[in-house]
């Protein structure tokens, strides 16, 4: 079983994710340069945080044209699991694999903090280690994490049980306190908080471990 981490120019959480999946969870993990198109042999793909292509124009707007992301769309169609963290979440929305968009935090600050989150859906296997409304804490670090979508899309997300995570104390003005969503099928998860930064006992918080451990289930 293998996990691939897509690396763009400007990604900066790629190594953190690898430390979490390989170092803490013991899952074989490799880096995939954004110009790769071959995703065969991978069971799950992670799009890590950072500032792909400098986040010029909008976060994720340029990254979504990377060759690897064409292959990612067929990977998702075939049921492959994809996790987008922070900038990875922004890229997945720009790509259209997830609904909505992420824009500037309401208070204009880059927020680097720990956020209390509530598990809102256990529909997909990502949250299978939790019960609905379980409370966890994960680090957040973003300037453009305010989740926005139209009322129609919001209703659809709720009807499909696709809202995966909510903030207990909304830090960025996201609509309905949304911190993470899945696609309808449930195999794609996008989230602003960083589970990979909460996997090592040395960091004092391992709440991210159970989310990352479901990459291969």
């Amino acid at each position, binding site marked *: 079983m293998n996990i691939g981490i897509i690396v763009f120019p400007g990604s900066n959480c790629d190594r953190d994710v690898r430390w979490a999946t390989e170092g803490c969870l013991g899952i074989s993990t490799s880096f995939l340069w954004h110009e790769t198109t071959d995703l065969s042999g991978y069971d799950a793909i992670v799009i890590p945080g950072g500032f792909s292509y400098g986040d010029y*124009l*909008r976060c994720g*707007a340029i990254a979504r*044209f990377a060759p690897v992301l064409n292959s990612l769309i067929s990977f998702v169609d075939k049921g492959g699991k994809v996790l987008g963290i922070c900038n990875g979440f922004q890229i997945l*929305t*720009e790509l259209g694999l997830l*609904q*909505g*968009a992420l*824009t*500037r*935090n*309401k*208070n*204009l600050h880059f927020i680097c903090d720990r956020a209390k989150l509530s598990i809102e859906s256990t529909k997909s296997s990502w949250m299978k280690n939790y019960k609905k409304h379980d409370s966890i804490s994960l680090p957040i670090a973003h300037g453009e994490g*305010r989740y*926005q*979508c*139209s009322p129609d*899309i919001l209703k659809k997300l709720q009807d499909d049980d696709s809202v995966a995570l909510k903030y207990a104390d909304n830090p960025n*003005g996201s609509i309905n306190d949304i911190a993470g969503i899945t696609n309808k099928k449930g195999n794609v998860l996008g989230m602003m908080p960083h589970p990979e930064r909460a996997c090592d006992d040395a960091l004092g918080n391992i709440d991210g471990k159970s989310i990352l451990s479901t990459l291969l289930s």
Partner: protein
Amino acid sequence: MSLFKARVFVHLRPSVLDPAGEATRSATKRLGIDGVTQLRIGKSIELEIEAENRDDARSKIELMSDRLLANPVIEDWTLEFKDEQKALTS
């Protein structure tokens, strides 16, 4: 082929809060100007494009604006042509 100059103005949709615009609006008060009731920030993108004719240029820019320059989930855009440049020698 002719060269066309155009400007695409990208702005947040009215329903989306613009905190940077709000912060700028509050700075107008500090500057001593009262009465600014609305201030929203957009991006102006100036471009030159080679195309068969204006309609051709328009359809290329429309595609570019929908797929790259703006994110229709949160942004709207408008297109404005500037003076047409003289035909390129082929």
